[in-house]
Structure formats: C-alpha cells, structure tokens
C-alpha cells in the first residue's frame, strides 16, 4: 500500500472523513486527494463505502467527523447546492432528470429567472457538447433519449453550473459497450481541459482503461491508492476482496440428489425494457446450495423474479423437477413448491401493519389445517403461528403484535419461518442476511444449512462473499446478466471470484462448470 505525498495543486482534499449509519460504519477516517486533470477510480465491493464517501463530497450527506478542504480552507456543505457552488457535482446512478421535459429545461431547473432563457442555455449546451464531444439534442424530451444520452445531460447540468470536480457513480452500469467507449473519450477530454474526474466502479476493466489513478476501499477505509501503471487487475482484485482466510461454517459433505431447479437459456428484460438476463443456465440438485455472487445490479433481482413468477421470461425454460414453471403465475409456482425469501423484505415479503400471525400465514392460509373451504380458522392460525415462533425462535411480545414493531432480524425470521414451512423442495433466498446483526445472521445461515440437510435445493443470492463461500456447494458469478462461471468455493481464490465479479470471465467460455 503506497501513500502519495499530497501535491500542492489539489482540487479538493478529504481528511479523516467518517460517516456512520445505524449499525454500520460506512466511512472510517478516509483520506483522499483529488487533482485537476486526473481521472480517479474509486474501487470496492458493495458496502465498501464508495457511494457514501462521494455523497459526502457532493454535499448530500454530512460527515460525522473529518473535513473537506478546498484551497487550504475547510468547507462545509449544507446541501448539494453548496457543493455545486464550490465546483463539485455528482452524477448519480439513478438520474435526477424530469423525463417529461426537454434537455434544455432540465438544465434550467433551479435557476432564478422570470422568463426562461431558453436560447441562451441552448447555445451554451451546444458549445459545451462540442467542447467535450458529447452529442445531445437540446430540444429532445428526456424520455426520448437513450440512457447514454441522458447521462450526458446529467453531466451537462454540472458543467453548465461550472463544476470543476465531477463525480460519477457507476457510470457504465447502464451503458452499452459503445456508449462506455464514448464516455471514456469524453472523460479524457474533460480531464485534459483541467477538470477533476472521480468515478465509482466495481469493474476492473474500466479502472484499467479509464483511470489514471485508483483508490481501493474496503469495509469503510482506504486500502490503497495507486497509479494505474503501477498495478494490475489481479492486484486490484485481491485488494478489493482481500480475505486470506475465508470464514467457513462447518458443513457436512453433501450428497446431492436429483435436480430440483433447472434454468435453460433464460433471458429477461428489466423494468426499463433493457436486457437483464442473457442466456442464464444452471441447475441445482436437492440437498445443494448454489450461491450467486456478483455486485448488486447485475441481474440478480431479475433472476429471482423470473423464477418466482414476478417477471416474464422472454426466452428459455425454468423447471422444478419435471414441471415446467416458465412464465406461470406466482400462485402456480408457489403450489409447485417454490419458496421465496425476497430481497426487499419490508415492501414485498411482509405486510408490516398486520400482525405477526398474519404474516406467518401468508403462504399457508389457503390450505388445511388453517383453512377449511372458504373459512380461515383463527385457532388453527394462531396455533400455527405459535409453533413457528417457537421453532424459529422469533422474538415477539405476542403473535398479534404488528410486524413492523419487530427488529429487522426477527422480521426476517418471520419470512424464513413462513417460506421454509411452505416450501416443498426449492428455496430462493435473496440477500437473506442483509441488514441483520451478527446473531440474526448466524441463525439465518444455520437455517439455510439445515434446509440443505433436509434435501432442499437452494438458490442463494448474496452480496456477502463470506456467506457465499461458507454456505454454498457451488458458486455462480453473475456479471451484466450473464453467468461468468460456476466454481467450487474451496477450489477458487478470492482473486478469481473478484475477477469474475468485475467482468473477467473464466477461460474457457461462459457458464461452464468447473470441476476439480
């Protein structure tokens, strides 16, 4: 790990930035120097603290400790507006654009005129786009633009307001390869003109091709800051993921049985109509856990949704045992024995205002003993609920307590209890220990292993590499909607996984299983 001597002509400097959220230390005394004319990549896994740090720099968050220094004086940003006035602006992953109005109108938002200075702003936009090689039709409505063009509008908004430091959060996440190449050219031109560029990424490719300098964050602190010429993808991957010893739960060698869940060439679109899954194929045997690794946003959510019937499949087949469940209704898939622990437990997995007992019954209420014909037997329901509360050790004052009053860990236990009891063989678990404390996480992981022991076929989608390597029999790494490779955790190095997560596919070609 090298320490750079701060050069005198920095654009902005961060010293000791610390930011805490409930239960999480997102940034831990981070130092960073940003120089004009330089493209800096901020690299790290999920939860490493990259976005938080940049949000602090851009005025969205206020640091608990530390300083932002410009021209040798500490500055305090009360809001993004202050940051912009000091020349620092951020392009977020989710664009802040009003789609129903034009590019010019979006750029003009927040100004203080009476009549709109449309002509003047249009000219300025044209000038700027030509200066930096970003073609955009100022009179186009934003909803008509491609994602790449929309991103250019976001950048133009900042340039129009005189930003000298531009921060981009995962800029290529939504771009095609051609658009990424164009962006790279644009960024290079801006840097040549003296702007300071910072971009947040988890893709090693980009770091090596776009950036001049890279800072690697891990678990809230800076692990290294290196010039690109002085490092390699492998070194970066190792720094990013960085565990020498992976924590392993004691796991029996499993005897997988017949195939429980199988996907063949599955393709699907995301909410914006762009491809989210490309030709995904894998199978999971009974008594086996297949982990899906990868940075969030590479198709994991869509994968869970196509299997559980919440999203249509455009090509390919999904089978549970012998039964084809492709594009069936959620109800039919539930009846086929598939359980789903959703990634968004508050908004999808639970009805927070209803009592714990009602949430526990959400899958079981259609059948005896809870139901008898159209009737719902309250006594049976309460008995059922009490049983689950006891066997899964859910901490709640009462089974009639509104679920929103339970702790996150116990809410997740409710979901787990319900899904495990309802399932008949196939379990899709999406970020099951997200937001839980150590104890709750332990119990979730133990439960998954127990289910594996009883013969369930489990798909485990997680952002936590420890969890994946500890629990899974095999790990499939997803990047950009594709399976980069399927490996055995004990036979693969963190570096290799890091590479796959960042876009490097294993030789030979994609979606091949790696044996010994």
């Amino acid at each position, binding site marked *: 790990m090298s320490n750079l001597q701060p050069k005198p002509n920095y654009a902005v400097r961060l010293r000791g930035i610390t930011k805490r959220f409930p239960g999480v230390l997102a940034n831990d005394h981070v130092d960073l120097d940003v120089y004009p004319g330089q493209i800096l990549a901020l690299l790290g896994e999920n939860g490493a603290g990259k976005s938080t740090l940049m949000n602090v720099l851009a005025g969205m968050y206020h640091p608990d400790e530390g300083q932002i220094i410009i021209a040798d004086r500490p500055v305090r940003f009360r809001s993004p507006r202050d940051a912009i006035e000091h020349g620092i602006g951020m392009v977020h992953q989710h664009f802040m654009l009003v*789609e*129903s*109005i034009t590019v010019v109108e979006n750029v003009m*938002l927040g100004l203080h005129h009476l009549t709109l200075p449309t002509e003047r702003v249009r000219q300025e936009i044209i000038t700027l786009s030509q200066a930096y090689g970003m073609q955009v039709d100022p009179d186009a409505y934003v909803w008509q633009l491609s994602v790449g063009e929309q991103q250019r509008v976001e950048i133009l908004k900042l340039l129009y307001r005189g930003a000298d430091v531009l921060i981009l959060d995962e800029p290529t996440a939504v771009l095609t390869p051609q658009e990424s190449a164009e962006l790279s050219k644009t960024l290079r031109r801006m840097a040549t003109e003296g702007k300071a560029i910072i971009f947040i990424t988890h893709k090693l490719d980009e770091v090596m091709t776009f950036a001049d300098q890279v800072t690697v964050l891990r678990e809230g602190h800076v692990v290294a800051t290196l010039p690109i010429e002085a490092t390699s993808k492998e070194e970066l991957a190792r720094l990013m993921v960085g565990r020498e010893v992976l924590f392993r739960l004691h796991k029996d060698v499993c005897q997988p049985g017949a195939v429980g869940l199988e996907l063949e060439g599955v393709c699907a679109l995301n909410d914006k109509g762009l491809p989210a899954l490309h030709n995904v194929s894998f199978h999971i045997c009974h008594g086996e856990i297949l982990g899906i690794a990868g940075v969030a946003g590479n198709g994991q959510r869509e994968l869970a949704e196509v299997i559980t019937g919440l999203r249509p499949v455009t090509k390919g087949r999904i089978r549970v045992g012998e039964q084809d469940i492709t594009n069936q209704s959620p109800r039919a898939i539930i009846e086929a024995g598939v359980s789903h622990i959703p990634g968004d437990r508050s908004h999808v997995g639970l009805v927070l205002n209803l009592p714990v007992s009602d949430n526990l019954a959400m899958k079981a209420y259609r059948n005896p003993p809870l139901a008898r014909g159209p009737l719902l037997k309250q006594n049976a329901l309460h008995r059922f609920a009490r049983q689950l509360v006891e066997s899964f050790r859910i901490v709640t004052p009462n089974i009639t307590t509104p679920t929103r009053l339970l702790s996150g860990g116990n809410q997740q236990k409710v979901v787990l209890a319900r899904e495990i009891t309802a399932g008949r063989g196939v379990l899709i678990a999406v970020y099951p220990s997200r937001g839980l404390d150590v104890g709750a996480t332990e119990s979730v992981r133990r439960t998954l292993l127990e289910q594996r022991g009883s013969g369930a076929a489990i798909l485990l989608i997680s952002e936590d590499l420890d969890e994946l390597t500890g629990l899974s029999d095999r790990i499939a790494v997803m990047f950009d909607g594709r399976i980069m490779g399927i490996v055995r955790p004990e036979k693969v190095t963190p570096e290799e996984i890091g590479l796959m997560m960042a876009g490097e596919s294993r030789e030979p070609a994609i979606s091949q299983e790696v044996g010994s």
Partner: protein
Amino acid sequence: MNEALVVSILVITIRAGTSLLYATLGGILNERSGILNLGMEGIMMMGAATAFAVAYHSGVIWVGLGAAVLVGMLLAAIHAFLSITMRADQVVSGLAMTLFGTGLASFMGQRLGPGGTTMVGLQGPSFQRIPIPLLSSLPFLGQSFFQQDVMTYALYILVPMLWFLLYRTQPGLHLRAVGENPQAADAMGVNVSATRYLSTILGGALIGIGGAHLSLGYLQGWADNITGGRGWIAIALIIFATWDPLRAVVGALLFGGINAIQFRIQAAGTTIPASFLNMMPYIFTIVVLVVITWWEAISKRVGAPAALGTPYAREEKR
C-alpha cells in the same frame, strides 16, 4: 343548416363552457404540481354562493367576484395545508372539502338572502353579454365568440397567459418539474412545498371564479346544488385535456356543447324525458374516461403528472 341554429348552439356552448373552463384550468394548476384536488365541486359551489351573496348585498358585481376569488383561495389553502404539510391522504381531504363546501354553500344559500332568508329566486347583479364592435359582426364565429360576457372574454386572454406561464417561464418549469419528479426538482434547488402551495391556492382562485360565473353569468341566480356536478366533470376534463391548458378549451367546449344540445333538443319539443337528457354529460364523461385511460395504456405517453397524489418528504437515504 340553419345558421341561426348553429350560432345559438355555439353561443350556449361557450357560455356553458366558461365556468367549466375556469374550474378546469384551476384544477390543472393544482394537479400539475402533484396535488390531487377532489374538492373542486365544493370550492366551485362556495365560489358560486359567495359571489352571488356578496354581489347581491353590495350591489357591485366585481366585489362579489373578488369575494369568490378569496374564498376559493382560502379553501384551497386548507386543502394544501392538509395535503402538503400534514401529508394527509389527498383523496379523503378532497372529498371532505367537497362535503364541507357544498354543505356550507347550501347553508349560506338559505341564510344570506335579505333578512336572513333564502337566496333562491333573488335577482342580483349579473354579467351581461357585451358584443365587441366589429368582431361581433363576423359570421358564425363573430356572433358566437364575440357576443359573450366579460368573464368569457377574460378567458381569451387567460388561456394563452396560462399556457405561457406553464411553458415559457421559470416558475412554470418548476411547477411542471415538481409534479413529475419532486426529488429531481428538490435536488436542483426548487422549493417543492412552496411551489405546491402556490399552485394550489392560485388554482383555487380560478375554481372559485368558475363557480362565480355560474351564479353571476351563466345561470344568474342561486339554486341549491347549482353546480350540479360540474366540479367533478372538470376533474374529468383535466384528464381529457391531458393537463394542458389549450386542450382544456377543447374539453370545455365539448361539454358546453352537450349542455347546449340538451337545451336545444328540449326547446324543440321532444319525447325524450328531461332526466335522460340531463344524464348525457355524465355518461359522456364516463365514455371519455374509458377512452382516455385505454389510450393511455396503449400509448404510454399521455399521462398524469407522475407524482400526482403522493406527498413528498425529503428524507436522508439509507
């Protein structure tokens, strides 16, 4: 085709459409900023009652109109307060406003006549039709568009003004942004609450004027339930107009036309019972709604302001 017939239908169409248009324009201002206002019927009724009562007792029609504006603004302010600051359910708040407004108007109607009696049957100051020299001699258009009362003429200026305000000024841009994506607008430094308050209150003024035109211009008097659902029809018209002031004119003319045709058919003597003729606007509204919604589902672009009806609160994420 009998020219006189066409002209007379056009004349009534424009007269009937005037109050509808004022209300619809007011509603468009509201909804463009993201505030759903289901209280329009109540505000319109109060506008009508207030305008008539004040005009009758003061003898000056403009004072009555001014009172309607104030009342409209006040009622809208209440709705704004509940919807924006108190983050109450905008549907229930609007419905409450309708019940409250119609009840209060009815109350006033029975007690604000001379000596505390009813206002029904009274004759107060009213807006008379004033032909505009030269223009009114034009065939068809001249005789219908330029032989109206002052309030209708005001619309000829108001509609382009509103269009200009909405699409060519900074405040109008902010208004549109706030209704579509309050988060983006907030990030760019626009004051979301202030914008919504302002547009709701100004909208209320216009709705009040719409009611005033009923009792001072079109119907010239007071009757219980004078608005007869026009406030609700205006809400449907907002959707029909796809939240655009210019298209609102078309909608208002359309519904004004239905009214006019109703009268004409009745006046011409017909076996169709009056009640069924009176149903026409409402049936038509349903048809319009179905067509628009179905069209919206297909074309995906003709739509309500995206943030309509959702309260906005800036909360630090995570």
